[in-house]
């Protein structure tokens, strides 16, 4: 420790002391202040800022500059408030191409999604920052790989009880009043199925975790996957929309071909004047 006393009058000593004090302060600060929060904050706030910019371009014309909604005129909602709808809602609506809508209408139809994964995440982060709501589910929440066969059969019962009234027994979709409809469920990803149940998009009611537990939701998803993977026992499904198409084909194929054969038979062979 001799050099401390011997060099204490050195011209650089004051500067060095100052630098050392700053280091100590910095070190102390880094210990006292919550380091993780500060670093994450910079990332999220950047994402939210990006989301906010995207929102202003693609969404704000209907949902308002701050997602507060545009109110209703004459009973029709111009753009609902997005405060509290949560990230899962955004991920579903934008991820399936339903939002932004091409034009106002009874219901937003599914269409090719125009946003990248990062952009959807940014929009979701922005909307989530407006108010607390359901988060985007993690893969282990919606992946039905772990669902047992018994639970899949139970999922079928849950589906028939809660879903088929609108979405049809085979998930082929159905009509709702005034131009609204329940879409077909063929080819919908597990994540989007889960998010739809969680957030109740468009006309759909919310199946919160209190109504359908995450296990139940996974069972329904497992049932739908299994149902749509089944081979078509009995031949062509004729659209899978029930007796209407069956009747149509009974007339076209059945009666049509038999009338054709009848004409052939009557024209063949012995012919009376």
């Amino acid at each position, binding site marked *: 420790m001799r050099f401390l006393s011997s060099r204490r009058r050195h011209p650089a000593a004051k500067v060095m002391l100052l630098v050392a004090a700053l280091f100590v302060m910095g070190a102390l600060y880094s210990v006292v202040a919550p380091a993780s929060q500060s670093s994450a904050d910079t990332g999220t706030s950047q994402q939210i800022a990006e989301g906010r910019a995207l929102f202003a371009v693609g969404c704000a014309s209907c949902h308002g500059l701050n997602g507060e909604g545009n109110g209703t005129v004459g009973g029709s909602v111009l753009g609902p408030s997005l405060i509290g709808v949560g990230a899962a809602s955004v991920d579903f609506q934008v991820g399936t191409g339903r939002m932004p809508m091409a034009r106002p209408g009874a219901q937003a139809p599914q269409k090719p999604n125009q946003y990248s994964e990062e952009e959807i995440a940014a929009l979701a982060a922005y909307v989530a920052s407006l108010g607390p709501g359901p988060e985007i589910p993690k893969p282990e929440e919606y992946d039905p790989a772990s669902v047992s066969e018994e639970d899949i059969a139970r999922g079928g019962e849950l589906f028939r009880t809660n879903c088929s009234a609108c979405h049809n027994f085979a998930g082929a979709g159905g009509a709702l009043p005034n*131009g609204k409809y329940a879409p077909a469920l063929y080819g919908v990803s597990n994540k989007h199925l889960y998010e739809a149940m969680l957030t109740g998009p468009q006309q759909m009611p919310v199946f919160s975790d209190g109504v359908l537990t995450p296990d139940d939701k996974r069972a329904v998803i497992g049932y739908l996957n*299994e149902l749509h993977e089944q081979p078509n026992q009995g031949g062509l499904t004729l659209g899978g929309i029930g007796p209407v198409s069956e*009747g149509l084909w009974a007339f076209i194929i059945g009666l049509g071909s038999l009338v054709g054969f009848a004409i052939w038979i009557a024209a063949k062979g012995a012919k009376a004047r």
Partner: protein
Amino acid sequence: MAKPAATATDAPSLEAQAPARELGPVFKAAAGPAKWADDRLGLAALGRKNLRKVFPDHWSFLLGEIALYSFIICLLTGVFLTIWFKPSMAEIEYEGSYQLLKGLHMSEAYSSSLALSFDIRGGLLMRQMHHWAAMLFIAAMLAHSLRVFFTGAFRKPRELNWLLGVGLLAIGLIEGFAGYSLPDDLLSGTGLRFVDGLIRSIPIIGTWAEFFVFNGEFPGDLIIARLYMVHILLVPAIILGLIAAHLALVFYHKHTQYPGPGRTEENVVGYPLYPVYMAKAGGFFFIVFGVVTLMGGLMQINPVWTFGPYNPAEVTAGSQPDWYMGFVEGAIRIMPNWESHIGGTTWSWNVAIPGLGLMGLMFGLMAAYPFIERWVTGDTGEHHILDRPRNNPTRTAFGVAAMTCYGMFWIGGGNDIVATQFRVSLNAVTYFLRVAVFVAPVLAFIITKRICIGLQRADAERLLHGAETGIIVRGPSGSYGERHVPISADEAFTLTQHVEPLPLTDGSEEEYAGVPAKEARSERLRRKATRFYFQDNLRKPSRAELEAAAHHQALEAGHGGHGDGHGDGQAPRHGHEDNGHDGHGNGNGHHAIGSSESESSTH
């Protein structure tokens, strides 16, 4: 249409030959047992007469056969299904091989339907064939009844057979519905609930009737067993009896035939049952069987396993009955929600009117129509020659209007499917149909009647001016005209053989000093009805007109071509100037009827 239509002159003119008396070895071997049987049954005399029964040949006469054969297929496949189906509503746990329902509680009926679909060899094929054949059975009956209606085959002496047919159609609906309800899946249970509503909508006694049918409140635990009895015993027996009576009457009345040369009200022109129609009808049975088998093998119908077991708390989008109940379903779907409460009773007009009322109206009108038309025409004669639909425009228009009305109700039955498949609003479909069920039949009536009269006009054109040849001739003056050739006498006969009913004018001949004679109201009504029916018909050309036309055509042929001598360039189509056939002077005082029509057909 360029050339005269071919009348069937290609029939082989067969020389009558004495058959060889020598019997083959098979016949020799069969002679002994055949004689043994004939001595005891006496079938030879019966067969000798009936096997030679003559039937006319036309494809539309085979529509009824499609229905008959489909019914036979239903019987055959149905026997297979009864071996395994368990008509019980007892609750059991499903242990079959369809994974997605394993462990669920369901009725034995549904479980055995699943077993038929997945665990019994050929069961699914049989189930699907049974269902397709049932759909075809009723579809073919409907098509057959339309053929009979549009050709006037229901006229005397066949009114009773028409009634038997209407009965078969109505009972076919019940049979189909009972079968649809048996598997006890979600869809069939929903259909049963629908009928439960229909029964309850019967005024006053509805609830008691429901309790009687379901043995208590819906769904109870007996309805499947009861419907099973109805479906496999009661109704098939009635259908078989009605079919036997229907066919016996066809044999007794002999078959109707389309008009043509050589065909009269007294004869039947065709070939004998044996061997020609034995072969044709027998072969057609196998064709129907083949088509139904292909449909059953390749086209999925009523996939009960996707519907799940019936649970009164569940319902699925796309719940529809089979097509033949679709019109009732549609009527109920588009009906406004009317209901009234009178002294502690509920009157569900919203279900009773479209459900019970519409079915009653449809079958009532069908049953009454032959008698209504008979009253209008006052026709007491027998009819074995069929009408060409154009020659009775009002009847044809009624038929098309009824079909249109039925079609509108049909669309109503699938209004949700129409809405989703064509991306229109469900409410818009429903509101449109509420108007269309009344307006569309009227439009269809008017349009059909005009088309029929237009076709009558085309017939008159062929008679008077001959058939178009497609040869355009340029006249000396530069005009163009198409050369026509006279149609054959056979075709001319076919076009003119029909009887023309005439509209009755008001009873003015009985008027005295401006005071109309008292006339029964029904008679006045009838006069009006005949005018409604026949006033607009185009009268067929008179003999004088036909002779003038024939003379003109002969002259034309002498000229060696059309166009010269007429070449004033006024008529792009034709070049005729004769106004000879307006007026239709049949000397019966009704001459104003057709003349304004025929002006336009004159060139």
